[in-house]
């Protein structure tokens, strides 16, 4: 039958299916692999950076990129306006701004970026529009939660989230993590689709850094550095706070600074971490090397006297070296305390070049500190054979040598740490995304810089620098003992020393139990004089004061100290009183006292009346059986000298006046501020002295010590 022919059709189809599957199948399946399979990377989240308390300094957030394909066929003008309006609503830019972007795009462009980063709300709003031309892409963005805080230390990342500077660069490999891969399917338009059960390699989240940075100290340091730079009109400045016992960097600041959230907005100078990459001539802070070398080599005695020239300058191998002022004759401790260049150079010249070089080397100059930050400079310490005749004396006061701020801080940290130099470091530990500790930083003692005995001998001398008679008078903090050194160096530009200065101060506190080394370096302060003690010193003072306020132990210590120093009361005038009256008076005021000699009358008192008393002070009273014989002898009978009762209490004045035989008339109460007749005159006994009193203000009782 004819229908047999129709049966040929299914048979043919069956054969064709067989042919496609088994004869040509492999090649077709290869074709499928080519066109339908693709791999996309799943970006790994970059690790976080924490401060020492676990506050997030750097983390990631998701942002969305909004773009448009203006060539989508069904896209109408009103839809474009709708898209732009929606964007305008959430981004604060005008709708016209976005419309212009689309208009100005190249004619055939099918991908016009409208906004690089919109937030989740705007993203959702655009998605709700359901316009096919809108392209929304999700990306990670690096967020520095505290903006400029520790900007130079943290560094920043580029658009691809590669670390460019700072910790972001140094630890890029750990922070980066490993991108995952996902197999996806493609369609004919190149759109990709994830599908269930697709082979997938999960992204490995980046490790997190737990740094030694103390955000509070960092904030204080930055604030004070900025304030100090503004005040001294310096061009720039760097500061470091470091723990001398471990080498942990607590804070590191540079000014001017930048915001790592938007690193490109300022020029590259702002982004440079001068604290580790600026090579400066240290100036007098380098005298630490000279003094350690001289003391350890036994080239100087503490009681040795050094004559300095009257005009304050001396000629060394044809070059004038000056002190900032003529100083006369100085002992060795005074040389350091007053920072005499001439005397330091004298001492240095007793040392051999090699010995001096070795000590400079021991203190870490000329080699990088190997802090875990990129772009650290090693400074420059010329080798002895490179030296000229004048290099030794000049180097001894910190010229002809270049050091980075971190090197200076490290040297003083070693000095404070009984001679053990620690490697400065920023990252305490590295943890995985799940919080497992991957790596813990070992505290690395680099070397012993000198004998402990040498350090112990010198330490008190440097403590004296921060005193009323030292160069760092303005770096003093009440109740806080500080070891430190000022430094002022003329800047060497284009082969000549200019009238521009680098002023610095490095301090260690508390001196007895060193916890912080703080270095302040100012570039070209516009003050006269530009000395480090005057420019950098106060910055240190404010910083140290506030850091001490954060540190419970130091705070407690200071409070105790202050209590001891506090003026408890003023010594009353007790001369001429009877023993009984004096006792009553002192007991009333709760002042401790001591009696000397026998007798009923008080003839002497120690301390004198009106002196400030601290709680520990005792008043020593000398007794005798006669009252102020000298005074009485000169007076005629029946007459007495009118005493000065100003400032006394009524009760005491009455006792005093009655003793002299006067009557008293009291007007008002409290402390006496006026009396009549005037004191010093003679008056017949039995007459009346009028005393006026008023309440004593409280402050004058427990007077504050004035601040500078």
């Amino acid at each position, binding site marked *: 039958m004819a*229908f047999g022919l*129709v*049966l040929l059709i299914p048979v043919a189809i069956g054969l064709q299916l067989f*042919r496609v599957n088994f004869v040509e199948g492999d090649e077709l399946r290869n074709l499928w692999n080519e066109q339908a399979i693709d791999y996309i990377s799943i970006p790994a989240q970059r690790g976080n950076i924490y401060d020492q308390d676990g506050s997030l300094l750097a983390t990631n957030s998701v942002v969305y990129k909004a773009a448009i394909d203006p060539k989508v066929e069904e896209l109408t003008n009103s839809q474009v306006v709708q898209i732009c309006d929606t964007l305008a609503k959430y981004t604060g830019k005008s709708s016209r701004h976005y419309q212009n972007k689309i208009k100005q795009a190249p004619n055939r462009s099918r991908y016009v970026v409208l906004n690089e980063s919109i937030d989740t709300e705007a993203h959702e709003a655009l998605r709700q529009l359901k316009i096919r031309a809108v392209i929304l892409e999700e990306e990670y963005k690096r967020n520095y939660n505290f903006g400029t805080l520790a900007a130079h230390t943290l560094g920043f990342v580029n658009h691809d989230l590669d670390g460019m500077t700072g910790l972001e660069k140094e630890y890029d490999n750990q922070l980066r993590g490993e991108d995952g891969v996902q197999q996806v399917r493609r369609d004919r338009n190149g759109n990709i689709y994830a599908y269930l059960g697709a082979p997938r390699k999960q992204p490995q989240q980046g490790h997190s850094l737990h740094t030694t940075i103390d955000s509070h100290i960092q904030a204080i340091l930055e604030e004070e550095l900025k304030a100090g730079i503004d005040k001294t009109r310096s061009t720039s400045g760097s500061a470091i706070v470091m723990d001398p016992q471990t080498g942990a960097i607590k804070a590191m600041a540079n000014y001017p600074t930048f915001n790592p959230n938007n690193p490109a907005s300022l020029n590259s100078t702002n982004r440079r971490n001068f604290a580790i990459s600026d090579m400066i001539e240290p100036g007098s802070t380098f005298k630490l090397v000279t003094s350690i070398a001289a003391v350890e080599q036994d080239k100087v005695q503490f009681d040795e006297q050094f004559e300095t020239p009257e005009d304050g300058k001396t000629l060394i191998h044809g070059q004038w070296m000056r002190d900032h002022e003529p100083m006369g004759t100085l002992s060795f401790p005074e040389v350091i305390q007053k920072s005499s260049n001439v005397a330091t150079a004298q001492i240095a010249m007793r040392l051999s070049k090699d010995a001096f070089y070795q000590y400079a080397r021991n203190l870490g100059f000329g080699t990088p500190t190997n802090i875990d930050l990129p772009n650290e400079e090693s400074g420059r310490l010329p080798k002895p054979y490179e030296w000229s005749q004048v290099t030794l004396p000049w180097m001894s006061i910190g010229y002809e040598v270049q050091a980075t701020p971190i090197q200076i801080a490290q040297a003083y940290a070693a000095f404070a740490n009984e001679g053990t130099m620690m490697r400065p470091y920023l990252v305490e530990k590295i943890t995985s995304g799940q919080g497992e500790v991957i790596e813990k930083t070992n505290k690395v003692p680099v070397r012993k810089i000198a004998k402990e005995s040498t350090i112990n001998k010198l330490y008190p001398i440097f403590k004296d620098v921060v005193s009323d008679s030292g160069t760092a008078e303005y770096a003093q903090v009440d109740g806080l003992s500080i070891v430190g050194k000022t430094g002022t160096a003329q800047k060497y530009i284009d082969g000549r020393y200019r009238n521009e200065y680098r002023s610095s101060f490095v301090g260690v506190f508390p001196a007895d139990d060193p916890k912080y080394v703080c270095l302040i370096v100012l570039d070209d302060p516009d003050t006269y004089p530009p000395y480090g003690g005057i420019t950098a010193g106060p910055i240190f003072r404010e910083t140290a004061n506030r850091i001490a306020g954060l540190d419970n132990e130091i705070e407690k210590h200071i409070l105790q100290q202050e209590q001891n120093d506090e003026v408890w009361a003023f010594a009353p005038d007790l001369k001429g009183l009877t023993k009984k009256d004096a006792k009553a008076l002192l007991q009333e005021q709760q002042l401790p006292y001591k009696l000397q000699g026998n007798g009923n009358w008080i003839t002497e008192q120690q301390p004198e009346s009106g002196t400030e008393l601290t709680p520990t002070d005792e008043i020593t009273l000398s007794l005798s059986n006669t009252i102020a014989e000298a005074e009485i002898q000169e007076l005629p009978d029946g007459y007495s000298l009118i005493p000065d009762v100003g400032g006394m209490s009524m009760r005491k004045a009455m006792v005093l006046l009655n003793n002299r035989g006067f009557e008293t008339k009291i007007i008002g109460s409290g402390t006496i501020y006026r009396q009549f007749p005037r004191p010093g005159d003679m008056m017949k006994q039995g007459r009346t002295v009028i005393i006026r009193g008023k309440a004593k203000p409280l402050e004058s009782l427990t007077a504050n010590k004035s601040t500078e």
Partner: protein
Amino acid sequence: MLYTTPNKNISSILGTSTDDIDTPKQGSDRILLVSVILLMIFGVLAVYSSIAFFAEAKHTTAGSLVVGHAVKVGIAFLAMLIVSKIDYHLLARFSRLGVVLSWILLIAVMLFGNEVFGAKRSLSIGGVSFQPASFAIPALLIHISVLLEQKQEYIKDFKRAFLPIMFWVVITCGLIGIEDFSTAALLFSLSLLVMFVGRISMMQLSTLILIGVMGAGVLIWQSPERQSRIDQYVDQVVEINSTKFNIEEGYQAQQAHIAIAQGELFGVGMGKSTQRNFLPAPYNDFIFAIIAEEYGLFGSGLVILIFTVILFRGIAKIAKNAPDIMGMLIAVGCTLTIVLYGFINAGVASGLLPVTGLPMPFVSYGGTNILFAGIMVGILMNISKYDSSKKAVFYA
């Protein structure tokens, strides 16, 4: 073949006539029913898998579209059951009206139709999309069956038999062909087949076919576009992996091949097709490729087998045992329509035939075509009830 005339009393349709005793009620064809149900299940699953892309373009979900599809399938199934209860002789009475109505609708489509992919094929009637071509096919086939029966006595006569029938065929196919050439060509072929079975002169038919082939040759020769399509077709049949696509159809054919090759023996699994992202209208023209990919050679072979079973039941059982010549012809027409649609769709997807846009009955996504496929099977089932061989058994 039997040329008996069963009673044409309308009351018999309602089953109230005493004539029921003469033509006892028989069960309709179970195998046919099961085949259709199987195809529908395949269809719903494959549509669900492949419609996601289309859903996205229409701003809706694959789920809602496939539920809509399932509802249409359900309606078609219901229509099939209802039609199977209606005596086909009743339908035959309105056949002329049906064809005329289809003409009106076809003209309406040309005037008011919705344009889809550059062709006007559907009409919105009260929010429901309707394709008149799907309706025109059974209407025409039933009508020529009626005419053929009427003209049996002078069936070889050119003027009295051939021409009057060709009048209906040419106008209907012409109206369809303006918008949808492949459907028109298929309907024309089906009509000729039915006419052949209805004993129209072989000479007349052969001449017509000869003229048609020559005409087609001229058309192809005239148009470089058509030539390139032929070239592409030959290319794709000879060398499956050819990457020389000078036209879109070559790309489509290759993607369909890849889909089939991906499926291998047992397929990649339900709903896991990837080629749906590369094939145009995977839920319709290339649904067979999707089935081949997801269910493998077994699944696609089963679908071909089901259509072959329908072919056997329809021709060798229902048409052969039809009570009258008209029933036989209608059975032949309906069976061939469904089966050829299925085979052509499969042939296109497997690269045997040039790319056309014909759906696979009961399987492809769509409304009108499933509905009328269901109605055609309903007619078939109704004819199967009057199985003359079974009646004989009954009497025995």
